[in-house]
């Protein structure tokens, strides 16, 4: 585990935690390594929400459970965090927000910080958040001027007076924070790259734009909605048609219709909404219409824990839809993956005429991390649409194994697509031989598309004897464990395309004496998939399904036990 500070802000929905988080992560990122995640209750106002900010000298991309500095923003923001508070924790709070008795039980230290009183001094209670930003910036000895710039940029549209008032409020907090002597500190890195800070949702959003998305139809469902919001914001600038559908059934049927017409379309949803889309997944399968579907996982079954995280919909997307047809499932681990995989999803869907899933989760989408700015190229904008001629047949048996896809109105031919079993021209057929030939053609694409398998990543020693296997958002935490060097003969295999799996992956498992699959679910869905698809030995699983992501402490402890 890397040396780091964890600062937690605990308040309630509607208090502006997200705004402070954005300010802090931007400001801290200029001088430290930083990673933030959040934990919110499913309510619009009230409840208890937290923002966790992890600050380090070296790169961090994972949640640390233990809290060093806890800021309470109301009188019901402590009780849910007691498991994370120790005798090393300092609690910054107004007198009435937590009793000495409660703190005493945990041997935590109280440090008085009356934000509402300070806000009054600054002229208005709305300055409390800016004062808190200043206070933490002062504690971390951030450069005042760069924080001022962030404030000025944020409030640019509100005029100089508002900016000046916020600068004053910031300064008030900053001086107090700077005067506070930290019992635990982390050093600043001697130099730091000019990082770009973003959350997973933004990475996915940028990737979809780079993949040529020009159509999104979706029905709101947390945490999948955030991509719909992102593309709505960018819609005008990037020519993306954005439609809120009446339900998820309409959404994916619209996406399929849009691809048929020549668009690059996506639907974003979560497990429950995706369950409604499954018939249309099957439709995309038999009509060989491309489709991209973003499934943002949250704990189920049914409504489950709407604002928390889980990786329990892998089986759902792998098996969704009646009948047999190929598909691709991509799951990003780091921010760069979000951009690259979302971009690639459209290209893969277009090239192989299959549904492609982007499988993320609440933790991945809502965590902010740093990336070294990078450029993307336009290779995934390559279109596979052909111009039709008079005798065009949509489902022609082509030597390539893939029937060239025309779109209506583009050429002299007709594009006839059918959800019934069909002949080469797209007409309904009940001919058994044609049925078998068409089914074989569709299923054969499963082996073809492995040529574009998304490479896995192995982190750690090549001569490992213990192998940790993960997919999706567990990347950062397992990577940190390996790189912290706590176990010399252990490596981490991160899979970015969980389905279909490439046979070349088998060698990693064969080399291992002890293979442990780590997943944010209760039944080890990916471990089972590896056994089924690769016929490999899995020795144990590390699973978590309470709605929280893995923390670095938990991975360290549970992996250490498993490889002992």
């Amino acid at each position, binding site marked *: 585990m890397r040396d780091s500070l964890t600062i937690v802000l605990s308040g309630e929905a509607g208090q502006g935690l997200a705004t402070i988080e954005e300010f802090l992560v931007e400001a801290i990122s200029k001088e430290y390594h930083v990673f933030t995640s959040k934990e919110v209750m499913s309510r619009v106002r009230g409840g208890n929400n937290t923002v966790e900010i992890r600050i380090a000298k070296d790169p961090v991309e994972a949640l640390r459970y233990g809290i060093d500095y806890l800021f309470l923003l109301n009188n019901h923001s402590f009780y849910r965090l007691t498991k994370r508070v120790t005798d090393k924790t300092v609690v910054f709070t107004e007198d009435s927000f937590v009793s000495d008795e409660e703190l005493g039980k945990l041997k935590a230290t109280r440090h008085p910080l009356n934000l509402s009183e300070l806000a009054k001094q600054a002229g208005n209670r709305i300055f409390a958040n800016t004062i808190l930003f200043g206070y933490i910036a002062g504690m971390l000895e951030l450069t005042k001027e760069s924080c001022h710039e962030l404030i000025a940029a944020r409030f640019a549209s509100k005029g100089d007076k508002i900016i000046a008032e916020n600068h004053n409020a910031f300064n008030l907090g900053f001086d107090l924070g700077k005067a506070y002597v930290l019992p635990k500190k982390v050093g600043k890195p001697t130099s730091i790259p000019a990082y770009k800070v973003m959350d997973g949702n933004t990475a996915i959003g940028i990737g979809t734009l780079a993949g040529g998305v020009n159509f999104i139809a979706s029905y709101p469902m947390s945490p999948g909605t955030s991509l719909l919001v992102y593309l709505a914001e960018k819609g005008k600038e990037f020519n993306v048609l954005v*439609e809120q559908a009446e339900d998820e059934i309409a959404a994916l049927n619209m996406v399929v219709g849009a691809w048929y*017409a020549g668009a690059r379309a996506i639907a974003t949803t979560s497990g429950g909404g995706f369950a409604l889309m499954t018939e249309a997944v099957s439709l995309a399968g038999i009509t060989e219409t491309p489709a991209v579907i973003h499934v943002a996982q949250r704990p189920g079954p049914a409504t489950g824990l709407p604002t928390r995280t889980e990786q329990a919909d892998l089986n759902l997307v792998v098996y969704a839809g009646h009948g047999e047809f190929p598909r691709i499932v991509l799951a990003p681990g780091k921010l760069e993956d979000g951009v690259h995989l979302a971009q690639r999803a459209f290209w893969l869907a277009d090239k192989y005429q299959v549904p492609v899933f982007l499988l993320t989760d609440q933790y991945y989408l809502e965590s902010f991390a740093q990336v070294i700015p990078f450029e993307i190229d*336009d290779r995934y904008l390559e279109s596979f649409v052909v111009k039709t001629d008079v005798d065009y047949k949509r489902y022609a048996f082509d030597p390539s194994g893939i029937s060239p896809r025309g779109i209506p109105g583009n050429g002299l031919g007709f594009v006839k697509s059918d959800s019934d079993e069909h002949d080469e021209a797209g007409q309904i057929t009940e001919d058994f031989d044609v049925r078998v030939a068409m089914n074989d053609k569709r299923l054969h694409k499963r082996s073809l598309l492995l040529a574009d398998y998304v490479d896995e990543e192995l982190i750690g020693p090549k001569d490992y004897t213990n192998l940790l296997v993960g997919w999706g958002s567990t990347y950062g935490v397992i990577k940190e464990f390996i790189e912290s060097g706590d176990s010399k003969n252990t490596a981490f295999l991160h899979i970015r395309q969980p389905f279909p799996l490439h046979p070349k992956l088998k060698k990693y498992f064969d080399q291992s004496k002890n293979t442990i699959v780590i997943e944010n679910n209760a039944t080890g869905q990916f471990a089972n998939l590896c056994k089924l698809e690769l016929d490999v030995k899995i020795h144990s699983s590390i699973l978590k399904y309470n709605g929280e992501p893995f923390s670095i402490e938990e991975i360290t402890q549970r992996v250490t036990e498993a490889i002992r």
Partner: protein
Amino acid sequence: MSKFDFEHDIDIAWCPGCGNFPLRMSIIKALNELGLDPTQVVFSSGIGQAAKMPQYIDANYFNGLHGRGLSVAVAIQAANPSLTVIAEGGDGDMYGEGGNHFIQNIRRNPNITHIVHNNMIYGLTKGQGSPTSPRDLVTPIQVDGVVNEPFNPMAVALSMGATFVARAFTGDSERTKEIIKAAILHKGYAIVDIFHPCVTFNKVNTFAWYKNNTYWLEDDYDPSLLTNAMAKALEVQKFPLGILYEVKGKPTFDDNLNVYHEDKSPIITRKRDIANVNRLLK
């Protein structure tokens, strides 16, 4: 031979005497008389005997899922507004399984034509009650007769703000054709509910029944008045036929989409500049 028809014989899956046959000819004639290029016409259908229509018309089609023909049609039209898009299906497909899409798409006012074959029965699944079945119709499922009130698509469409609402009867191919032409020419959502008999499963609502229980709107009927139209839509003893309502000039779904406010070119023809995307990564 006309456009939209086949040079070779086709094997049609409908029962002899089905109302779908004359309707097919009305549609083909309508498309020809409008001088449409078949490569620029797309049918989107669901599942059912009615939804097989696109199989028998030589143009583009997407024959998708039961109930979802409208969703696909609206997306095709929005992705490429230069196409003529027709959604077609039966009463069970469009009013039952697809009922929510029917209601919500009227609100969108997409520039498409919606043809619904209304024979008041499920044909493909062999004779169960449909949303438009009359009360007391005995079926293998509704053994004591249908007890639900029949769905009134005309009144629903009018109440949701549909801009073109019409009803036809295949017993008059010429008028049916003219109504379909008017629906295709209408800019905005145009529904044409088409009565026709199911000769195999509906022994109550027969050709003669439709003949006796419908009448064509008088020549002096004014379809521009919503109050007229609603009064006609609520007549269910003897069903009025013709264009009940048409209002012009209401913005369509694609008109309202911000991607079409300034640039009218279909979104599918526009290129993405990767340099603009790269700016987001700075």
